[in-house]
């Protein structure tokens, strides 16, 4: 535009200069608004973590006297523990950050302290993920995606904590530190991991990538330099600076709202419908029955009693039957009802299996299985 006299002084355009509705959709080119300019990531299922809101806890809502590795409460979240003498209670707690939409958290309550870790001690919370769920990360290529891990944490013990990604297929690791600033107060944390151009993840149902939240580590894991870039896994570089959050029976560690997503910034937590979240957990663990409830129909074959069980959802792999067992914890109702202690699995696949018991039956009877004790439980487990 030409001017007579002086050129006007340029002035920055502000939001108040633009009247509502003056910029119509038609005036914005289709490719004008790129992803970095949008304020939030709205990609469905962007959260790679399953059950990040801790709403599913099929095994138990609380397990006390935990001194070993395993899945003890919230689905998909495992306590990994090496050598430490600490004993904890793991629970699905209702202590959550206010006003964020969460109703549950994963809680570690220290019941026996380990105030002086020896070199090999370590304890952490982990989620293992299948390689075939992660191919979009393009790990091991020049286009490898960065990942951002966000979560809410509340810990009695303040100080430096470490979160890591561990590539099981290629034994590679990256760690980032975060700080718990105020004791027993919910704080939102976010760390970003660069994409890894080395080491592709297997496109299969095996455990390829873990997320680790360290709770404590001995010198075998803290004596090096923290692996803030992807590197071939060296134990000494895993958890440098990690505080010992297990050094007192007064200590608790709670976490919820966990999201791992592609990109360099954290978006709002992606809440899935309750039933969708449960269905995703079923792939790894499926509660069948407990107390005195119905398990399934079946019939006697020779001296055995057999029942077909079709799973709610296909499993990650061929599952085990996990059962809380005891004398006469299960029962077959037929013309001659018989109690027995545990089931056995046969002809199992990712889709279904035969459950059978051998309480010495009469051939050719039809009936049904139930739990026969208030403590009895039976479930399918195909965890990583």
């Amino acid at each position, binding site marked *: 535009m030409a001017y007579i006299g002086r050129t006007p002084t340029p002035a920055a355009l502000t939001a108040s200069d633009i009247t509502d509705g003056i910029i119509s959709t038609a005036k914005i080119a289709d490719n004008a608004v790129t992803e970095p300019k949008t304020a939030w990531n709205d990609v469905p299922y962007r959260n790679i973590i399953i059950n990040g809101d801790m709403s599913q806890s099929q095994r138990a809502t609380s397990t006390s006297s935990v001194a070993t590795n395993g899945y003890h409460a919230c689905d998909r979240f495992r306590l990994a523990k090496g050598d430490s003498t600490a004993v904890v209670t793991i629970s699905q707690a209702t202590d959550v950050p206010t006003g964020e939409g969460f109703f549950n958290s994963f809680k570690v309550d220290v019941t026996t302290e380990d105030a002086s870790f020896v070199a090999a001690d370590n304890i952490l919370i982990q989620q293992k993920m299948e390689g075939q769920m992660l191919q979009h990360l393009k790990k091991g290529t020049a286009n490898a995606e960065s990942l951002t891990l966000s979560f809410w944490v509340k810990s009695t013990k303040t100080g430096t904590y470490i979160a890591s990604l561990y590539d099981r297929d290629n034994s590679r690791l990256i760690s980032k530190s975060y700080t718990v600033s105020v004791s027993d107060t919910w704080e939102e944390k976010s760390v970003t991991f660069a994409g890894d151009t080395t080491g592709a993840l297997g496109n299969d*149902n095996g455990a390829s990538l873990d997320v680790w939240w360290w709770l404590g580590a001995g010198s075998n894991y803290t004596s090096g330099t923290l692996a803030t870039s992807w590197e071939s896994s060296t134990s000494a570089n895993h958890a440098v600076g990690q505080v010992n959050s297990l050094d007192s029976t007064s200590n608790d560690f709670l976490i919820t709202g966990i999201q791992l997503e592609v990109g360099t910034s954290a978006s709002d937590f992606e809440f899935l419908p309750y039933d969708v979240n449960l269905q995703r957990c079923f792939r790894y663990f499926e509660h069948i029955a407990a107390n005195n409830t119905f398990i399934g129909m079946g019939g006697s074959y020779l001296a055995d009693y057999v029942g077909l069980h079709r799973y709610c959802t296909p499993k990650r792999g061929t*599952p085990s039957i996990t059962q809380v067992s005891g004398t006469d914890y299960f029962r077959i109702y037929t013309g001659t009802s018989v109690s027995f202690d545990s089931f056995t*699995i046969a002809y199992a696949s990712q889709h279904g299996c035969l459950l059978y018991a051998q309480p010495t039956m009469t051939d050719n009877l039809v009936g049904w299985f139930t739990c026969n004790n208030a403590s009895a439980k039976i479930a399918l*487990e195909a965890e990583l």
Partner: protein
Amino acid sequence: MIDTVTKNYFIGEFMSYQVTYTDSNIVKSVPLNEDNTDYQVIQQWIADGGTVIDNGA
């Protein structure tokens, strides 16, 4: 920690392992499948010197 591992037979065929654990009332029935992490643990337990109970078909 694994306490005992016993072979399960169904119609004369070895189908799975029955596993009990020390100080626990958990019993697992584990299919013979290498993708199954319980199966992997059993194989490691055997490699470490554990003895599987075989009561026959």
